[in-house]
């Protein structure tokens, strides 16, 4: 009986995870714009801003500036997890050129199209590639990237341990993870915690 209940609990957890993933994807598909100039002005310098086309600024949704702290070097391969409109991929491409490349992954097709257009507009389209893929199952081989960056994305997953295991798998030995995210140190009210919008944000 205990094993049976455990099985049911496992299925419930799986359904809950699937619900959260679907709610997050729906929320991202529903928005008509990113956070835009207000957030870019807070997180990026004037010099960084000058490298960005308007589309990348419009679709900014990050909570930090991981590229600034990633110590990227020319020739490196960088994975941008949850690349969105491509803002951090574009900045990273400027560090790893010449010879390097940036691979962005995202689950939202519209975001992938925006990122490709924005990278091209920024003049780094040749060194950026944007792939459809989940952060829980990254479509790259093991030990294939020098650095991973991510901005406000890992926290969206209901399977964070799985995501971190994937980031570890794709990094080469000695590779670096640099990410920005929101952390919550104390409990939020149930009305907030159970909101799909809170998960998406």
């Amino acid at each position, binding site marked *: 009986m205990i094993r049976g209940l455990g099985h049911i609990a496992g299925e419930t957890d799986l359904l809950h995870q699937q619900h959260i993933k679907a709610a997050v994807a729906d929320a991202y598909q529903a928005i008509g714009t990113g956070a835009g100039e207000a957030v870019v002005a807070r997180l990026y310098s004037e010099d960084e801003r000058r490298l960005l086309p308007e589309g990348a600024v419009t679709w900014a949704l990050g909570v930090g500036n991981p590229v600034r702290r990633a110590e990227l070097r020319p020739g490196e391969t960088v994975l941008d997890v949850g690349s969105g409109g491509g803002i951090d991929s574009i900045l990273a491409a400027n560090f790893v050129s010449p010879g390097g490349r940036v691979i962005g992954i995202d689950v939202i097709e519209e975001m992938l199209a925006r990122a490709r257009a924005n990278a091209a507009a920024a003049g780094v389209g040749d060194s950026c590639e944007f792939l459809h893929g989940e952060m829980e199952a990254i479509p790259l081989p093991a030990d294939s990237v020098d650095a991973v960056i991510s901005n406000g994305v890992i926290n969206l997953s209901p399977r964070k341990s799985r995501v971190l295991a994937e980031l570890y798998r794709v990094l080469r030995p000695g*590779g670096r993870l640099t990410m920005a995210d929101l952390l919550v140190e104390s409990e939020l009210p149930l009305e907030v915690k159970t909101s799909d919008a*809170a998960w998406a944000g």
Partner: protein
Amino acid sequence: MAERVFARKLSKAGFVAVEFFGHTGYGIDEISDYPLFTPNLIEVMRQTLSPSRQRHLAVAVIVRARKPALG
């Protein structure tokens, strides 16, 4: 998720040299800039959270970690 919990998950995944820095407080005013936080959710937060908690909902951090080198 709290910082200590995230640090533990990183270590469990195999990462080393885990560091957190650039802590920046996020309150309702900051998250309102993001369209993913719906007006309804913002209103629920204003109704259910104390004024001080509304100013300190979450902390944005930069996290760095490394996969150990071979040998």
